[in-house]
């Protein structure tokens, strides 16, 4: 019940965190941010690291900023900050709408955007939002900063492109008119059985761009191009969410489905059109109202 002994270092700067990662490349090192996933794993014995590098004090990774039509969210921004941020609601409404679905208030107050994305839980909410939003993930490593498209960041259950010597520092999203997130909630875990994030850009009453992505169904978030293509180019008032979402399940490969005793992969897949319809509908309402869902 006590986790096996591990070393603990609290990084004062990003550079220090990175050098700790490099200096201990031969050991099992885990980054500790909000601790909402890792601490539970430590208690359960599911994680047995040699070294914890606590990045919780890296204030440079906190906060939300907006510049040049992009919203940047620091890796240490909490779900609660994102869900209640007026900046996020105005410029990246999909992220705020999704963050308010994450877990419960206590977890939202502690859990971080960066930690959640790096954890790569296939049933988590935020991964769908960043994939739908065409977000860019900012990664720092020994060679400096690199950026990764959210669509390429997730590689499967618990797996991302992050190297063991790299730190996710933040995520930036192009500004969008509207966004929403809909979910059928797993009765035991509280995560998604099927979740869909949708973003829309509207110009002159016409949907000029759309991003729609699913979580909870496959081993990683999946862009639902079949939904997007039925939305883009249409006047907002002409979009039929049900028709747009009808093919939502098509992009999901059968061999990537996830499921359990409460909800099989097959069932989750068939939920997608319904959940996608709801997400698109709410995003359209947001577009009509000039932003995110009410």
């Amino acid at each position, binding site marked *: 019940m006590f986790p096996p002994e591990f070393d603990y270092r609290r990084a004062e700067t990003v550079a220090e965190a990175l050098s700790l990662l490099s200096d201990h490349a031969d050991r099992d090192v885990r980054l500790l941010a909000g601790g909402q996933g890792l601490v539970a794993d430590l208690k359960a014995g599911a994680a047995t690291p040699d070294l914890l590098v606590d990045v919780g004090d890296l204030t440079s990774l906190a906060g939300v900023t907006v510049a040049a039509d992009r919203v940047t969210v620091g890796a240490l921004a909490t779900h609660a900050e994102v869900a209640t941020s007026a900046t996020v609601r105005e410029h990246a409404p999909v992220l705020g709408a999704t963050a308010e679905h994450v877990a419960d208030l206590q977890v939202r107050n502690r859990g971080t955007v960066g930690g959640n994305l790096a954890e790569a839980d296939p049933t988590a909410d935020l991964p769908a939002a960043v994939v739908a939003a065409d977000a860019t993930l900012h990664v720092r490593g020994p060679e400096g900063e690199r950026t990764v498209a959210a669509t390429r960041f997730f590689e499967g259950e618990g797996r991302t492109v992050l190297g063991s010597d790299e730190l996710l520092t933040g995520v930036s999203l192009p500004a969008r008119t509207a966004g929403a997130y809909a979910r059928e909630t797993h*009765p035991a875990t509280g995560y998604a059985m099927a979740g869909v994030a949708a973003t829309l850009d509207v110009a002159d009453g016409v949907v000029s761009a759309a991003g729609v992505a699913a979580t909870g169904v496959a081993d990683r978030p999946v862009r639902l191009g079949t939904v997007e293509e039925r939305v883009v180019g249409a006047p907002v008032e002409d979009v039929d969410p049900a028709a747009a979402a009808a093919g939502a399940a098509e992009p999901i490969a059968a061999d990537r489905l996830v499921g359990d005793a409460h909800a099989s992969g097959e069932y989750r897949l068939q*939920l997608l059109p319904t959940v996608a319809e709801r997400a698109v509908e709410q995003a359209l309402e947001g577009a009509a109202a000039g932003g995110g869902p009410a």
Partner: protein
Amino acid sequence: MTDDDDALVGRPVPRREDRALLTGAAAYTDDLRAPGAAHLAFVRSEASHAHLDDVDVGAATAIDGVLGAFTWADVAASGTPGVLPVASARLDCDVPGHPVLARDRVRYQGQPVAAVVAADRYTARDAVAAVEVTVDPLDAVVDPVAATADGAPTVFADAPDNVAVTTELGDREATARAFADADRVVELDLANNRLVPSALEPRAALASWDDADEQLTVRMTSQSPHGHRRKLATTLGLPERRIRVVAPRVGGGFGHKGHHHPGEAMAAWAARQLDRPVKWTATRSGNSLAGAHGRDHRTTAALAVDDDGTIRGLRAETHAAVGGYGLGGGPVMPGWYGRLLAGQYDVEAIHCETHSVFTNTAPVHSYRGAGRPEAIYVTERLVDAAARELEVDPAALRRRNQVSEFPHETPVGATYDSGDYGRALDEALGAVDWERLRATGRDDAGRYVGVGLACYVESTGGGHESGVVRVHPDGGVTIYAGTHSHGQGHGTTYAQIVADELGVDDDEISVVEGDTERIPTGTGTFGSRSTIAGGNAVAESARAVGEKAREIAAHRLEADPADVEEAGGSFHVTGTDRSVPFADVAAAAYGRGLPAGLEPGLEATTFYEAEGTAYTFGTHVAVVAVDPDTGAVDVERYVAVDDCGPRVNPAIVEGQVHGGVAQGIGQARSEAALYDDDGTLLTDELLRYALPRAADLPDVETRATETPSPHNDLGVKGIGEAGTIAAPPAVVNAVVDALAPLDVEHVDMPLTAERVWRAIEDAGG
């Protein structure tokens, strides 16, 4: 006796328990400290069925801080019986009880095979991983029907067909005649899902051995301290007089904390073995793995009805899993479930055959309702199926067949004491606008709307109970009762009852439960029995004390006792201004001034047993909306009309109904303990076992009718289990009603979204 206008009984007096519970001042078992206390943790079998070849505790013993690591050999060497007994005299086979640690065989996943005791709980749990268990696996059987098939793996050699006991109720031939004679027969195959009792507080014990006086004290999560003392005495080979069981604050019982499990017994054994206090607290996964679980019935049932709506007969055959061992009366209990199969109806003939079947799963025992939910589920599903078959309103079919004269004896041996079934039904129908809901097809969101009824009876209040009322020399009162409160609020309700009987302010009354050294005897709290058995026991003692006080008062007032009456905390001579305060009478009882022939002291002890069973009843209605695209079920409204006779504290009664309905909706919608074919529990933690959450539950609208029981002085009936009995059939009937346009006729619990969606798909929807 207090005048009706001033009576506390019948008022929603705020629960006196809540201050300590809400501020954290209340200490639960795991909060208790004892000097030098060590901590016990179990090594549990990963295999569900296997020969136990070897348990090597050597490496665990070597860990710093480990005080002992024990196997069955150590228990046997100590000369302790070490077995949790099974009610073998009432079984069809001669099987052993549950050893506190596995002997040579494991029969369910999670069965304790070794125990580690360490200076702290962390070391104990870590040392568990150092114990090496070698097993030779055997084929497992988890389904109670499959377990009785030819060639199924055998759990006990002495029960080759795995049947612990088969119980028959009613008359097979008379039922066959009724079925042959009736116009129509409806049949259903029903599964009553296996549940994991999930009290907020897991089970726990802190045991201490006093070697000087050879006394064992076990502070533990118990619904029945005297019952546990008796069971511990058997398992430990100690006389009852050497054991004290104390139940401190207990966070939910539900039957689970009335049963005899290995943890508490092993903590007691280890405390004596090591001569230091030992604490054991169940982990959540240990609680899930080792049970006792609840329900798990497979039933084939049929109802015979005439075209005019007369219910003629009911028959049921049930296979009930009892798990890898029988725990006490656990295997016997399913046989009695059929006692309630008549439900609220006057049925000519009933036959019920129940097979209690060993399976390689956690033991099964009574869980809030204990057979009554299983019975009423069968009856109420059948009545709805018959209404559909006859194309009549299910409420009308119920009304036509409801028992209206009391007492009423059913063909399965129940005698209903009193009731007004039609009134409760009417009240419920009126509350929900039944006719309009019946006519509603789909709501604005396209969801199918359904409404479901459950008319139930509940047998309540068996067994004896002790109640002591002691008036102290200062006039204050302490009540001692053999029941135990773990959410029921006896501290409040017993004080209300005694305050009315004695004319004393309830603030002057303390209530003590949960200590075998302070309370003469007790049966405990389960089976919706406490207000009947304990409430009447303390009421009777209070009346005796009140009579004696009046005699003393009359003596002091130099009046005839017949002319003395109690009012406002004093005794008065009728028609005069002469009076004496209750406190002065109490002082006199312990000092000088007693009338000749009266013994000193002012207290009374009652061992009470009601004359017969009190049958609580009512009608619950669930209104649901089902999303045909997702299968998601929303319980949009829930109305509970319950009749438990006079309500001592209506707020506490409502709380009981709220909690029971929450658990019932949990069974109906999401809860299920699932095993794979190898006997591995798939739902061993709350990330996999779906308890209902606040957001999943509707507001429960409670209403009351009041029909006293003739069997006890207070006229009360039990209410603790009504919600778990009525909610599952009400919700399932509502969902089946909602999906009737799609030709869905049956869905098994739990009504997970996927299961409902598949039912729609399979029906061609």
